[in-house]
C-alpha cells in the first residue's frame, strides 16, 4: 500500500489536533506534542481504485513562543494549512507560514482548511476574502472538527492530490 507523510500546519489553537482526532481514532501519544513538538498518527484513506496510508504529523502550533521545527517537514508529500475561521489573524499567519515552508516543500499539494465552521456567529472570514484565496489558486475547505463537517473530505482530497 502506498504511504504518504502528511503534515498539519497552523497557528496554535486553530484545531489541528482536533481535526486529526476527528479523522483518526488512533493515537501515538498526546504527550509527545508537548515534549518533542509532534505527534504522529496514521489512517488509511480509501480512494476509488486505490488506498493510501496517511502518516499524519501533528506539528505543535506555530506562535510567538514556539517556532515550528521545519526539520519535521522533510519528506512531506502533502500538507494542510489550518486556519481558525473565527480569528482572521490566523489566516494571515497561515499565509506567512505557507511562504516559509514553500521552499522546503516545493510543489507538494496542500489544502487550506478554514476550521471551526460550526461557529458561524463568530465567523470572521468574509466571502470576498475566500474568493480572493480561490483566485490565488488556493484550495479552500471549510471544516468543523467539532461537528465533523468537511474533515473526511479534506483528507480524501489531499490524498487524491498526492497520488495525482
Amino acid at each position, binding site marked *: 500500500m*502506498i504511504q504518504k507523510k502528511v503534515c498539519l500546519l497552523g497557528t496554535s489553537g486553530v484545531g489541528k489536533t482536533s481535526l486529526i482526532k476527528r479523522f483518526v481514532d488512533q493515537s501515538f501519544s498526546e504527550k509527545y506534542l508537548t515534549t518533542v513538538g509532534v505527534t*504522529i498518527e496514521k489512517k488509511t484513506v480509501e480512494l476509488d481504485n486505490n488506498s493510501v496510508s496517511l502518516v499524519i*504529523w501533528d506539528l505543535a502550533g506555530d506562535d510567538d513562543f514556539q517556532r515550528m*521545527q521545519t526539520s519535521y517537514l522533510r519528506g512531506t508529500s502533502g500538507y494542510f494549512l489550518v486556519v481558525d475561521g473565527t480569528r482572521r489573524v490566523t489566516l494571515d499567519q497561515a499565509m506567512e507560514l505557507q511562504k516559509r515552508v514553500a521552499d522546503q516543500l516545493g510543489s507538494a499539494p496542500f489544502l487550506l482548511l478554514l476550521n471551526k465552521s460550526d461557529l458561524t456567529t463568530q465567523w470572521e472570514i468574509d466571502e470576498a476574502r475566500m474568493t480572493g484565496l480561490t483566485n490565488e489558486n488556493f484550495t479552500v475547505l471549510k471544516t468543523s472538527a467539532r461537528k465533523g463537517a468537511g474533515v473526511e473530505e479534506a483528507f480524501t482530497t489531499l490524498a487524491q492530490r498526492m497520488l495525482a
Partner: protein
Amino acid sequence: MRPRIFPGSRKPPPDDLSELRRLIARPEQDGLRELRERLDDKERRAHDVAKVLPEAVKLSADRSEELNRALRPAVEGSIRESIEKRPQAFIDALHPIIGPVVRRSIAESLRTLLQSLNQTLEQSFSWQGLKWRFEAMRTGRSFAEVVMLRSLVYRVEQIFLIHRETSLSLLQVGTNADATQDSDMVAGMLSAIQDFARDSFKTGKDEALEEFRVGELEVWIAPGRLAYLAAAIRGNPPRELRTCLEETIESIHILRGSELASFQGDAAVFASLQPELESCLRAQYQPKKTSGTNHRAWFALAAGAALLVAALIVGAGSEMRWHNFVRRLDSAPGIAVTQADYHWFTRSHVAGLRDPAIADPAALAQAAGINPERLRFEWKDYLALDDPSVLRRFERRFGKPASADLTLANGVLTVSGRVPYEWLSRVREEGKQSPGITSINEKNLTVTYDPALTLNRFRARFPMPSGTHARIDQGTLYLSGVAPYEWLAAVRTGAIKLPGIQRVSEEKLQVTYDPKLALQRFTDRFNLPDTVNARVQNGILVLAGEGPHAWLSRVRRGASTIPGINTIDEHNLTDLDQQTFQQSKSVIESAFVYFLVNKDNFATEGFAALSRLPDEIRRCITAANRLGLETQIEVRGYADAVGTETKNFQLSQRRADAVRDFLVKCGFEPSLFKPMGLGAPAATGAALPNESDRRVGFKVVPKS
C-alpha cells in the same frame, strides 16, 4: 632504394620518364599525405593516443616513478576541484568502501585491546575468573573473549528499516512485532526524536542520534544515506551487533539504492530485504558449546554432570520449598488442602477447600518463595469456623481498632483495650451475625468517642435551633448562643443519654421562653380554677379573679419554679378562703347573744343569733383551716352594771359558759372556745344600754 623527387621541375618530362616516376613514387606520396593528414587532424590524433595510452602508462609505470610524479599535481588538483564542486558524488562513491575500511581498522585495534585485556585478566584468580578460564579452554576461545561474551547477553527484538527523507517505515522484522505500536508511527516518532535531538543540541546535519536506552531496551540506529536501521535490543548488545547493522544498511543501499532514492511511498519493493534485516535479529543467552577434541568432550560431560547435580539440588530445593509451602498452606486459616501435586515442568496443582473471605493462597505462595504463576489452584469455597479463621473474618468485616485486642475462644469474642464507640456499636449490633461468634465480651474495654461523630449524633437527635451553637470536648457538651427552653429541656434530659456526652454545660447559653408554652406548663401543673384568669408576660405570671387559698399558696410556692415564670402578679386576684374567713369572722364577731336580767338564760332575741352561729363558725373554721390558721373563738360574757363587780364577773362567766355549752352541743370541740367572764362593760369603758350589756359576744383569735 629511396626514390628521388624533383619538385621544382616545371618542364614536362618525357612521357615515359614521368610515367616511370609516377609508378615508382606514388605509394610513397600517398603514405606521406596520409601521415600529414593524420598529424593535422586533432581528433584522429586523440584517438591514436587513446589507443596506446593505457599501454604507455603501463610501460612508464613499470619503468619508473616519473609518470606518477608527473601526474600527481594534475590528479590532486582535479580531485580537489571535484570534491569542492560535487561532494555528494564522492560521498556516494566512498560510502560503501569507507564503512568496511573503518570497521576493519577498528576490529584490528579491538583485537589489540583484547590481547592486553587478556594479559590483565590472566593475573586474576577469582572463582569467576577460573570458571571463565575453564570455559575458554573448553571452547577454544581466548580468555578475554569469553569474559566479554559472558558479560554480554542480549536479544535484538525488532529492526525497522526507515526511509530517511519521508520517515516512513519500509520494513519491520522482529520477535514480538505485535507488542509494538504501528511501525509507521514508530518510524515517524524515531525520526522526530532524531530531528528533535539534532535541532535541540545544534549538532551537524549529518550527525545523528545513534543510540538511546529506555529501561531494559536499547535502541540503536545505524544511519545510511537514504535510509537507516533502528534496532530495539533488550539487554547489553555487543559492539559487533553495530557492525552487523552497519553492514546491513550498507548492503541495503547497494541492493536498493535507486529504489530508496526514488521512493514514493510504496514500500512493497523492500519486502525482499527481509532476510538482510533478519540477519541482525540476533540473540545471545550464553556461549554456545562447541564440539572439539576428546579433551573438550570430557569437559562438556563433566559440565553436564555438574549441571545435572545442580539441577537435582535445585529440584530438591524446590521440592522442599513445595512441601513447606503445602504444609503452611494447609495450616493457614481458611484453607484445607485435599490434594497437592508437584510438577517439575508444568504448573503444580493444589486443590482443596478455601474460605474466600480469609485465605489468600497466592500471597502464601509468594511468601514461601513459589511463583504463584507456576501454580494451578482448584478451590471449593467453604466457611471456616476454627477460631483463627473466624477472628480473621471478623477483622475483615469490622476492621480492628489499632489499640484494641481481640481474642476468640469457644465462640466468645473478647474485646479489650480502647475502641471507638462507632466500631463497638457496629460490633454489638452485627457482631453476632458473624458466623462462629456467639457472644461478645467487653472486658477491660475503654470506649473512645470521636467529638465530631458525637456531635453529629447529638445534632441528629436534637436538631439545633438557629442561634444555638454546640461543641463537645472531653465528654462535655458546651452550648452557647440562644436556645428556646423547650429544646434545652429536651437536651438536658436526653443529651447525656447519647454516647459520648456525659455533661451539658449551659454557661454561655441564653435561654428564651415562649409565654404561651410557659402558661401551658403553669396550667398543666396547677389546674387553673375556672374563676381565675392567667397569662404570662415578660416572665411575670399575671393572675386575675378568685382562687382558693390552697391553690394560691401552691402557686405562690411553685409558680416561679416553672421555666419562663419569674414572678407572680396577683394584684387582681382574690384569695377566696381569706375572703370567707374574714367575712365569717366579722359575722361571728358582730353577733351577740342576749340574756335575761341577772340570769344565764338566753333572752328570746338571743336565739336568733345562736341559730345562725354554728354554720358561720363552721365556715370560719373551714376557711381558717384552709388558710392554715389555728383559731380559737373567745366567747366573751358580759353583765350589766347593776350589782356588784364580783357578782357581775361570775354572772358574765356563767353566761359565756352557757353559750360555749350550747355550741359544744352543736358539735364543736370544747377547746375551740375560750369562755371569758368580763363583768360589766363599764370595766371596758364602754357605756351601753342596759339590756345590751347582758350579752355574750365573740372574737376569733389565733389559738393560744
